[in-house]
């Protein structure tokens, strides 16, 4: 496909990168894995700033947190020993569910976060896992790096505008997590994607559901509260209760591939299954 690109840059520092981005205004774009580079909306780009030389591909684990550089690929997430813990299962599952091997080799954590339009599994998992983002911005000519909670809801995309995702920081402890997603074939964007995680005595839930104007990465606080109470013990009908709670706060986003009510119903099913996985219960009865 035709690209109007006239300039390719490969900066080696975050500072240089953001300066370039600033200088080019809206006509430049950051290029990480490039898995969406050939999308039609990019035909008008005149300048890409390739992030491959930035020192952002580091994985660093401490006692209570895991810092994943934004340039870590999804392929690496799947096989990274630091992720081989039950509490990070959702993240591994999300990485493995993305497209196909060749694209997992290219796609990066930061890139998938930036291009999410409610169609990705990775943000679902990250939000449930309590991820924070390290974002670099150019403010008054200075480069400022801040750590912020993963943005959710309708304004999520705006919150990342103009920023460079440098790293994702995940809290570590004990617990379990699971991502359940559903596509029409084994290689498909999810019709719905729900993640559940147990952490610090509570359950965390996130859902990503797509739809025109309703791209929607959200947390599910009422269901979380209900499910957290079940960590110690669950009523016999917990699945039915959870389903009702989930249906109550999931969005009904419609697109050409699924109606809103089916998608909400599906998300509730996936939510119950993700919870079951976290509780160590059978997912399908």
């Amino acid at each position, binding site marked *: 496909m035709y690209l109007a690109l*006239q300039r390719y840059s490969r900066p080696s520092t975050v500072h240089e990168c953001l300066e370039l981005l600033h200088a080019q205004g809206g006509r430049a774009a950051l290029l990480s894995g490039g898995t969406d580079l050939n999308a039609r909306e990019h035909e008008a780009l005149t300048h890409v700033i390739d992030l491959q030389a930035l020192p952002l591909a580091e994985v660093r684990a401490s006692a209570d947190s895991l810092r994943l550089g934004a340039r870590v690929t999804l392929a690496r997430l799947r096989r990274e020993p630091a992720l081989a813990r039950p509490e990070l299962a959702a993240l591994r599952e999300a990485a493995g569910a993305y497209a196909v091997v*060749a694209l997992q080799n290219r796609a990066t954590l930061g890139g998938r976060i930036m291009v999410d339009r409610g169609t990705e599994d990775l943000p679902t998992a990250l939000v449930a896992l309590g991820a924070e983002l390290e974002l670099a911005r150019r403010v008054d000519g200075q480069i400022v790096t801040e750590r912020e909670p993963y943005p959710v809801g309708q304004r999520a995309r705006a919150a990342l505008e103009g920023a460079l995702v440098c790293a994702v920081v995940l809290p570590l402890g004990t617990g379990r997590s699971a991502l359940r997603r559903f596509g029409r074939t084994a290689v498909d964007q999810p019709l719905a994607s729900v993640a559940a995680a147990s952490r610090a005595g509570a359950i965390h839930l996130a859902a990503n559901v797509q739809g025109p104007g309703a791209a929607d990465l959200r947390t599910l606080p009422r269901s979380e509260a209900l499910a957290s109470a079940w960590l110690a013990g669950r009523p016999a009908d917990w699945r039915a209760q959870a389903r009702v709670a989930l249906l109550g706060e999931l969005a009904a986003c419609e697109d050409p591939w699924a109606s809103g009510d089916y998608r909400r119903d599906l998300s509730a099913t996936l939510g119950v299954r993700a919870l079951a996985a976290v509780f160590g219960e059978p997912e399908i009865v």
Partner: protein
Amino acid sequence: MKIELKVNGKDVAWDCAPHEFLTEALRRHGLLGTKRGCESGDCGACSVLLDGEEVPSCLVLAAQAAGHEVTTSEGLGDFAAPHPLQQAFVDHTAIQCGFCTPGMVIAAKALLDVEPRPSEHAVRECLAGHPCRCTGYVKPIQAVLAVAATNAGGEAR
């Protein structure tokens, strides 16, 4: 712009436009085993190895490949000495129209390089990015598994 990279073991310096994708640059230099099937990363016909990993060359700017090593199907074998995977695809009648074949061979090579004795599921996963309307995948999977079966444990080809 001039980009320097290694293609099929040879150092090259190519003149490329900033918007030129690696697929185009390779084809322009006569490496026609790299096909254009969708130009959105969804068909695998343009797969090449970039530093040993399978990538869709339609989503890699030629400029991005500067300083890296690219291997195409031409780099794996030729009539005199086809790669075992190329031979296996031939032997198993795993080739019908053949348009997807070089991409599948590249994908399988990348897999076997890191996992010489993969499970059938791993083989299916490695070919999942290579939609093939002709074969129904049965024989390509058999071909890759046949090569894997000849791999002594742990030895990469």
